[in-house]
């Protein structure tokens, strides 16, 4: 940890965030005040609080200061992020097979920073033991449909977690978990630089931009491959349907199904939709029957007209009341 050059800065004066103290002496207080003591716990939950010190990247990139506008650096240069963890409780998530998340060596951690990668977790927990695997649960159902892109060309860029994400950390052996639960307070820092971590920011966007413009030949091949599989599946479906058609069921009936391709849903079912109301409305009357031939027709028409008059009258009254309510009569 000491290998990295760090400046311990922190904000002393909350009332005036524009003044930032660079004082070295108070710097360690942020995480290191109770250095050596066990981690604090959130009462009645069993969750331990893991403070991680996060440094502004402009602190590390000294080359940025060459930029004229980098003189604006009013933001907190150091801040603390709080993760919370405890041992994995298999009852909470009954679906999880205990072989995937064995209770005795799995740690449940929550409120991860959005840019968390396996490398970051390794960095924090390597002191406890070897980590077998990490399962992120970043994606929530509220994620939009086109963001859960599968098989996208963008695969390989860094996945971002949503704020407050959770993860399961499975240690190689139960000792790792025990060590983790007995972690003591000390300074832990977040920022790490590693060639293996895909970049963020401008580099990442450039990368994405390029990836979306991949070689058309390769893209074409992928599309062809997909379509080949798709056609095959369609064939299969068709065959199955075909097969079912001529099979009498247990009562000896043969199900008659349409062969028309067009009215079949994506899943092969048929939907019958009614004609839309406004289409019907706009249809020209087909037969021009006389509307004022019989007496009852004329009587009907009179009745309708009266009703319409009454309706209009009511409408007017309402309109007037509305206008009055909105106090629309003040000319100045």
């Amino acid at each position, binding site marked *: 940890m000491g290998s990295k050059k760090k400046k311990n800065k922190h*904000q002393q004066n909350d009332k005036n965030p524009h003044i930032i103290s660079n004082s070295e002496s108070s710097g360690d*207080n942020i995480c290191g005040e109770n250095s050596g003591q066990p981690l604090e716990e*959130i009462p*009645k*939950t069993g969750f331990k*609080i893991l403070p991680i010190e996060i440094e*502004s*990247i402009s602190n590390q990139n000294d080359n940025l200061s060459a*930029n004229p*506008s*980098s*003189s*604006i*650096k009013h*933001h*907190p240069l150091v*801040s*603390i*992020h*709080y993760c*919370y963890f405890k041992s994995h409780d298999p009852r909470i998530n009954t679906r999880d097979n205990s072989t995937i998340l064995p209770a005795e060596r799995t740690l*449940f951690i929550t*409120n991860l920073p*959005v*840019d968390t990668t396996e490398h970051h977790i390794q960095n924090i927990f390597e002191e406890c033991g070897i980590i077998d695997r990490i399962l992120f649960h970043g994606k929530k159902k509220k994620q939009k*449909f*086109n963001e*859960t*892109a599968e098989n996208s060309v963008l695969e390989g860029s860094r996945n971002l977690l949503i*704020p*407050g994400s959770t993860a399961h950390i499975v240690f190689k052996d139960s000792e790792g978990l025990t060590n983790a639960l007995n972690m003591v307070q000390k300074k832990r820092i977040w920022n790490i630089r590693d060639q293996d971590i895909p970049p*963020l*920011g*401008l580099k990442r*966007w*450039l990368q994405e*931009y*390029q990836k*979306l*413009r991949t070689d*058309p030949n390769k*893209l*074409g091949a*992928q*599309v062809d491959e997909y379509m080949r599989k*798709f056609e095959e599946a*369609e064939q299969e479906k068709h065959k199955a349907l075909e097969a079912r058609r001529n099979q009498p069921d247990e009562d000896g009936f043969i199900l008659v199904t349409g062969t028309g391709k067009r009215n*079949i849903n*994506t899943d092969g*079912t048929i*939907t019958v939709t009614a004609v839309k109301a406004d289409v019907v409305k706009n249809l020209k009357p087909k037969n021009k029957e006389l509307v004022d031939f019989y007496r009852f027709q004329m009587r009907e028409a009179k009745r309708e007209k*009266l009703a319409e008059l009454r309706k209009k*009258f009511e409408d*007017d009254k309402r309109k007037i009341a509305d206008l*009055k309510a*909105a106090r*629309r*009569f*003040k000319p*100045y």
Partner: protein
Amino acid sequence: MEYSMYQPPTNEEIQGLKETTDLYKSNLFKFQIDELLSEVSIDFSKTTSLENILHKLKEIFENINDQSDLSITDAKSMLLKKHGITIPFPDPQPSDDVKYKFGFKKPTAFYLVGSYPLKSVIRSRNGFNVDVVVIMPKDIFQEKDYMNYRYFYKRAYYLAILSATLQYKGLALNVNVEFGALFGDRRRPIILLKPLENNSDALDFTIRILPCIPMDLFSTQRLSPSRNNIRPQHFQDLGQIPQQQSVDSLPPTPQYNSAILRDMYCVSHLNLLYKNSKDCLAFNDACKLAKVWLHQRGIGGDEDGWSGFNGFVWKMLMCYLLHGGGVNGGKKLANGYSSYQLVKGTMDFLANHDFIRNPVFMNKLEESDEFSEKSFTENFDVVFVDNSGILNLFCRMTKTALEQIQHEARIAMEYFNENKADRFEALFLQKVNDIKLRYDNVAKQKLDYHDPFILFARTIPIQLKQGLTNRVNLITINYPQLPTWSTSSEPPSYSFSNLKLYIGFIFNPEQSNRLIDYGPSPEDETAASEFRKLWGKKAEVRRFKDGSILECVVWNVKGIEERCLIVSRIVQYLLNLHYGIKGKGIQYFTGQLNEIVIPSTNIPKSIYNKNGIVNGFRDVMQAYDKLVKQFMALENIPLRFSGIRAASPALRYTSIFIPQPLALTTTNISHYIDPIEIIIQFEHSARWPDDLIAIQKMKIAFYIRLASELELQFPGTCVTVVADNSDTIISEAYVDILSDSRFTFRCRIYNEREITLLDRGIKDKKSNQLKKEMYTKALEREKRMFVEIPMHTLQIQTLCNKWPSLSLTIRLTKRWFSTHLLSDHVDEEWIECLSSQVYLEPCPWNRPGSGFVGFLRVLKLITSWDWNNEAMIVDLSEENKSSLKNNTNENNEDIKLRFKNLRASDGSCKYGLMFIGTTSGSAWGIEKPSKVVANRIKDLARSALLYADELIDKRENSEFKRLFVTPLSDYDVIIHLDPSKCTRYYQNIFVDTQYLAHNKKSMSSLKIYNIEDDDIVMRDVKMQDHEENLKKEKMVAMIGFDPVEYYLDELRKLYSDVALFFHDKHGGTIIGVVWKPTNFTPRPWKANTEINSILVSKIENLKDQKGSEHDTNNNNLRDQNIVLNTKAVVLEIERLGEGFVTGIEVRK
């Protein structure tokens, strides 16, 4: 309810219902009139304090003492020393050696005149006036006093004595005594009594005391329009009437004469009006309505020094029409008319009567030469003679003023006659007199002249009209009346009053931007010399294409923005040439905003070539047409094209900047290239798969094919296929085409099948909620992109062609929204609809004729529209106008219903806060702006309008660019971006070219990751060899690459629950962040909160780290509560923008 609709009716009910329908509009109108009248009328039960003052006045006047005659010097010094009053003598001031004496005797009578006793008085913005006429006794005047201002000097003295008395007794009256000039005419000073403000709840009134004289004091013959009553020697040799010159050869003094006559006929007019108001029941109500109408248009009030028209003249006009003025000598109005009919009838007459050719006489003294029609028309611009046949009531009205009044009256008639809409609001409730909104162009001039009436109101507009010809429909002159003054000070004059005069222009949009003014042939010598006299050096002789040789004036312009300035150039040129008004003497408001939509001149040509904008949008339109032709001619595509549609602001004249072709030689990637969206559609085919994902894949296959065929068949074109190739129902894929005309198009395939399948998926009963939501969202997106936007593009295109200034209005409005960091909070289409509304529904004004006024009117619309309760219906296709059938009403009702449902279903007002529905069925402004943003938009618009007022009214040096500088004080956090890495920085409103140079360097030296065979090959794309290699260019020209957009996209995905982000996408270098207030309400800790949390206790720990005792009890309670860990989030935001963010400013 439904049942009772069919109950058998009674006779009365049928009668009542029928009337309601037959008089539907007027019934609703009538109701609105009643409401308005009750709003503006005076509560006559509250007039006790006013009546008290009037009674006291009576007493004072009855008991006033006569004064002995004084010489002028004695009179002056007596009033000044004893009472501190300066006699309000008109200019020219009487000399001190005048022989005649000044006398004062008790007034013989006094009357209440004007609207107050007639009970037709209304409240205006400045309260109301109560006029008291004081009849001066005959014996203080001499027979010849009508000559050489003697009457006016004596009148001024009389008034001064009255005011001295009132001031002295004023303690009991509790009023403030001031002088004013009646109708801005300094010859006729009056006394104004304003109650001191100790009774605040009482009526806001001013008592005006007008000294008058009996009708038989002077011979009316002597005061006829053609007589001269000011002898030139008067000023040198006062009192001596010269004999050497024949009196008849002197120029007539009609204004002077009328001023005396008006004092003589005051009471007789009152009698006439009183009689008419007794005969015609609705007379007073009609007067009140008319006064509201006039007041809203700035006619007849204090701010009106120019019109010569007011409520009194309107009443006289109505009297005239009650007895005549109709067809074949009949009556235009009848005593039994309703107030509505009276106003409409009078308005019709005012709008359409040709006052110049057919002067109006209430009474014609046929036998008299002195008061013949000729005598009036020769000496006055406009003639409307009163019931005596002697006084021209339009004596102060110029032709220019008449035109403006008639213009307003014509608009009013249009509103009265409109069947489809109820224009009550535009007629009576909206303030029309707003200089910045009313005219297409405005010029401001300091009133530096003795009397603006002569020079400005009469001559200048006529000269300008000669030069502007049919470029303008109307030239107007506006200036206020002289302000009132305290009795002790010198009377003000127009020269020193610091008043401003405005010349307003209403354009004829078809002609206003004409490049050439054609004159007569040089052979027609008189006409040609007149033409040259008008234009001076600008006039030249040219031979035209049709072979004719003509005198002409040619206006050279660069680009469409400059074309809009031709009128202003003509006005400034003519004023300078003929009146020597130049430079700072006149301020002209029109082109000040144009620089906002033209990138700065300092920008390197390789980025934006300013010379290219001469053609406006023509270049891009041609490039598009060419591309369409190429598509249609394209071979080797499995399906034929059935349609290609434009879907971009660039193709509907509404992109802020005029699109420019990419510079040929430079291959720099440093600046943003805006792709122009187009939609292509193939002919129907049954071979598309019935699966959404498969359709996406097929589309990609088509894109690949299109790309290779386009490049092959049309050399010089480069096409890039862009696809994320994900297995989703709607994936992002398109081709970017750099056409051979060097414009970049982004082309997407529209397949109707997708819409059908999505629709089916939504309606499928087996779909679960999640799928339905997903499909609905996808369907909305597809419909918008492929159906609504192309249609919208076509509609806006048509409107912009029809009304040329609409384009600039939209561009300015868009720029305004984006400079206020609202780019992503409103849709461009929404802005376009909003701006079009100003043209489609321009009332109460004319349709805007310049981008300047169009833009300001959009701001006005934002502030004045009742967004919360009303859906704005924009008739982009102008269906409401064209179709005769009434199905449009249905259409409107549909939109209203949709809006109502939206409001009803959304209790917390999250959606549709600025809802706009179009008659063609699309709706805008539903998802955004949000409530917070909507309020901010309104606030910003309001303060922008105030600032515009200030700029036009007060400032000498106008800094209009400041309208586009946004206040940053409301943001919690400001993210500063590196301008040299913002690809759109060149569009910044205050661009600093230092960064652009930097920009090029820093971007081209960036390592670009080129993905090949899954290996990241680092390539340095420094294009040292400028060889025209298309393949390389294709990669280097990063069409549509805007890192800010990527960044914001990421931020919104992650933090839309906790913060709002604000940015100007047109070159902005900051992102404003506002935390949502809910983040700071402590809430209990949970394992899964979806925010980056911090325990409240931790914050307190940090705060009082320096040793204050912890209150443990308290802590326990709060131990489990969390809030947003803003500091950690700020650092996360910074990490996400690595290499791009230069600093984050935490402000709150």
